[in-house]
C-alpha cells in the first residue's frame, strides 16, 4: 500500500513570504494530522482533520497558519507570512480511525528554512 505522500520535500523562503505544503494520506484513512517538528524536539500537533472537518486546531497559530482538507482526502497547510521561528520539518500523518489507539502513519516531511 502506498504511504503518506508530501511535497515539496524541501523549501527555502525569506521571512514574510508565503509557503504551502501538500499531503496525500493513505487511501481510506479518515483522520489526517499536520505536525511541526523543530530541530531536536518531538512533533507538535498543529491541526487534526476527521474527513473534511477540523477536530482540533488549538495549537495552530491561526494568525499566520491555515489548513484545509476540502474533499476529505488531500490537505494543504499554508503559512502566510512566514517568520524565522517557522523553520522546522512539517509532518503529515494519517490514521484509519480517530481514536488514539490507532497508529499514525507519517509522511517523509517537508523541511522548511526561513531566512
Amino acid at each position, binding site marked *: 500500500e502506498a504511504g503518506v505522500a508530501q511535497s515539496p520535500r524541501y523549501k527555502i523562503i525569506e521571512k514574510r513570504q508565503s509557503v504551502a505544503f501538500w499531503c496525500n494520506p493513505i487511501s481510506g484513512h479518515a483522520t489526517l494530522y499536520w505536525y511541526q517538528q523543530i530541530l531536536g524536539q518531538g512533533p507538535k*500537533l498543529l491541526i*487534526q482533520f476527521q474527513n473534511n472537518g477540523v477536530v482540533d486546531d488549538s495549537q495552530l497559530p491561526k494568525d499566520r497558519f491555515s489548513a484545509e482538507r476540502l474533499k476529505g482526502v488531500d490537505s494543504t497547510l499554508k503559512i502566510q507570512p512566514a517568520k524565522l521561528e517557522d523553520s522546522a520539518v512539517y509532518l503529515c*500523518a494519517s490514521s484509519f480511525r*480517530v481514536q488514539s*489507539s*490507532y497508529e499514525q502513519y*507519517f509522511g517523509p516531511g517537508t523541511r522548511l528554512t526561513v531566512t
Partner: protein
Amino acid sequence: SQQGEEDPQALSIQEGENATMNCSYKTSINNLQWYRQNSGRGLVHLILIRSNEREKHSGRLRVTLDTSKKSSSLLITASRAADTASYFCATPRGRYGGSQGNLIFGKGTKLSVKP
C-alpha cells in the same frame, strides 16, 4: 497536559549490545506508543501498549508499562547499526484516552549504534 519525556536524551552503544530508553508521563493514559525516526525522515510506529498490559514484545523490541509510576521503557536487544535513530514515546492528549486521537510526543532519545 500529559507529556512523555524520554531519558536519556542520547545513547551510544556498540552493535550487539542492548539499548534501554525510558519515558515518563504526567497523567493517566489508556495507551502509550513508541515511534522511531531515522535521520531526515518521518516517524514509524513501533509498538502500542495498553494501560492494562505490563509488557509487550515485537521482534527485538520489548516495551514495559508501569502505570503506578507513570513510566514506560523500550528495550532493543542485540542492537544493529540500522537501529540508529531517534525514538519517541507518545501519549494521548486529553484525559483517559484521547478519543480525538491526538498524541503528545516527547523530545526523544537519540540512539547511535556503532558497528
